[in-house]
């Protein structure tokens, strides 16, 4: 599992610059979490036609326009959380201490069902540290989650 976080952390560092590059907005670990979803390019066309707009993809990438998260997706889907809007869902769930996005994150990290409750507690208790400022990016949060897990006796085994 170490690879997952290595990949995520790596992306967190390197994608920052790319986040605003052509073809890259709306996606990547470099996105600010509380940016909402206005950048989700799929939504406009989805609103009109319930579908995709010309660059439908088939599995090897995540399928959002300009958002190629193929590498992390291969690792149990934690790359999904690089997609705009996803980490904000996690933030919301973390504030409360439970929710589908947080569960999905724990599953994507390979955390066993019996330890997921504990994972959520640790996340909940450290909300302020994880989401320290309004300009925090998805990659930064991911990195902090990893650090928190390393410091925790039970969760360290999953890192």
């Amino acid at each position: 599992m170490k690879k997952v976080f290595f990949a995520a952390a790596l992306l967190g560092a390197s994608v920052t610059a790319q986040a605003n590059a052509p073809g890259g907005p709306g996606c990547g670990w470099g996105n600010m979490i509380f940016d909402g979803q206005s950048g989700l390019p799929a939504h406009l066309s989805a609103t009109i036609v319930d579908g995709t707009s010309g660059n439908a993809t088939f599995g090897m990438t995540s399928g959002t326009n300009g958002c190629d998260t193929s590498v992390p997706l291969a690792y149990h889907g934690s790359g999904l959380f690089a997609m705009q809007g996803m980490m904000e869902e996690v933030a919301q769930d973390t504030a409360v201490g439970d929710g589908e996005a947080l569960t999905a994150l724990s599953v994507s990290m390979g955390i066993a069902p019996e330890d997921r409750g504990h994972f959520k507690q640790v996340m909940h208790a450290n909300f302020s540290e994880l989401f320290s400022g309004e300009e925090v990016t998805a990659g930064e949060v991911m990195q902090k989650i990893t650090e928190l897990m390393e410091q925790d006796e039970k969760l360290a085994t999953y890192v």
Partner: protein
Amino acid sequence: MRAVLPVLIAVLLMPTVSFADAPDLKELAEHPRWKALLHVNQGATTRGRGHSYVEDEAFFLHPRGKYRPEQELRASIKALRPPDSPERCRFPARYRFLAESLGWDSEREPLAHCDEYQQWREMIPGSRVVMVFPAAYLNSPSSMFGHTLLRIDSDDDDGSEWLSWAINFAAQVRPDDNSLFYIYRGLAGGYPGQFSIVPYAQKIQEYGHLENRDIWEYRLNLEPEETRWLLEHLWELQDINFDYYFFDENCSFRLLELLEVARPGNDFLKGWRFAEIPVNTVRALYDADMVAGWRYRPSKAVELRHRLEQLDVPEQKLARRLADDPALAETAEYRALEPETLHLAASVAYQYLRHHHRRHDIDADMRQRNLALLHIVNENPAPELPEIKSPVPPEQGHGTKMVAATGGAREDTGFGEAQFRWTFHDWLDRDAGFFRGAGIEGLNLRIRQYERHRPRLEQLDVVRIRSLAPRDRFLKPVSWFVHGGLERRQAGERRRLVRQLQGGPGLAWRLGNAKPHVFAVARMENNSAWEPLVRAGGGVRAGVLYYAGGFQWGAGTGGVYFSNDEYRHQSDLTLNVPLARNHALRAKVLHQGWRDDDGGETEFRLSWRYFFD
């Protein structure tokens, strides 16, 4: 040489295979799964019966494969037989069908050389298949009746749906196509349709968050083996074009075809499926005993309303102010609240901000407020919230088509009426399974015969859509209506058939079970009494819907003033009494007036309405 060798082997093999088994191949080409794999039209729609729906040369190994399933079978045998055939990597399901049918069982890993495919299959292991039905979305022409997609869960673990994949069939439109053009081409054909696979979490965001649609999820009872057929075949459809027709060959229809591959021999592709609408797809799955259970996923707006209902009015006001300035939480007024209440108020404020700005750019101030609100949520314990109650699922609603028999009187003259409505629901029909206050009617025909007269067309609506979206302290949507067709109205000295198109924006609210509303009306009308050809008019209409004890009441009044100084007004009262799921009685009394009307005319009618299909 490497390319030549397999061909050589194939050529050598071919005569033995095709001559020896010739009669069997003819039979095999009729196998339900072979037909399903080729997407052969088995009579459900009119275009090209017996031919494949696929509009893409890349999908066929024989030039006439689209039209000749047997030829395609022979060509497939030829291409897929050699062990290292690259075609196997494109057609894994076809390969398996042939290998199992023709006893090619000597190879242990026949697809070992297909790296890309193997990688893909690893990513989508697939153990549970779910039909997903995001409910109607009136603000988009293509989603008015809802939409369907399939979801592939990687395990049976509830709670990891966010990591599942969604299989979606949609028209491939160019981003610069506008909505009207889309409707035209969608109806007339001309868009290629393709399958795509996207993270389900993205679909939840699109439907549940951006569009505020409730989502219904129907777990199917496919066996792992059947799921495997489905996924292997899905790979064959990568980048493959189908024609997309809004009415028949649409998303719902295509998904049924996929399920036919998984479990062949269903009846749902044999019957006439013109204008397949998603709710009937769900019913078809129930009829085929494919549904193992369902789940309701409320939209974000429903979640917000649910939380809001846990607060009393002064607390709601506090929550609303908190959204504008989270720092208020430090003031005495907020500190006096129970911590659980403050948690709830902050989460309502946060959800309100997200909802309100879901289509806008977020600035630094908004980001700050969002985070500050989440901090308040985090610092205060969560209250126990009652679960959101699921409404009646759509497939339990009334049928989509309707006929009605009506008797009535206008002034002193009695009349009888026959009515047929092609689709779908008006806002006074039994609301179980439908979204309250939304009405979509297409092709609504009423023929009326007065005593001692011949039958005459009374009304023919081509389309009538009414969307009532109630406003409150937090959510402020705009309602709207559009209505076009023929109707009999006073023009000149008598009632005439007029051609009209009207529409306008409106406001609606909710007071308990009542929905008061008001609409602005813009109307274009053509009739044989007025010059010039088309007259414009404007007006207003106000009314209230009331749902109580299983009955639906509607009352309204309004008028339109025309540019030739004519005017008309109408007031009406309607009571709808559902007798059973597909039967209802409806009584309506209305009064119509116009310039120089000498008191106007009053009409009463009583209908028996029967829903079917």
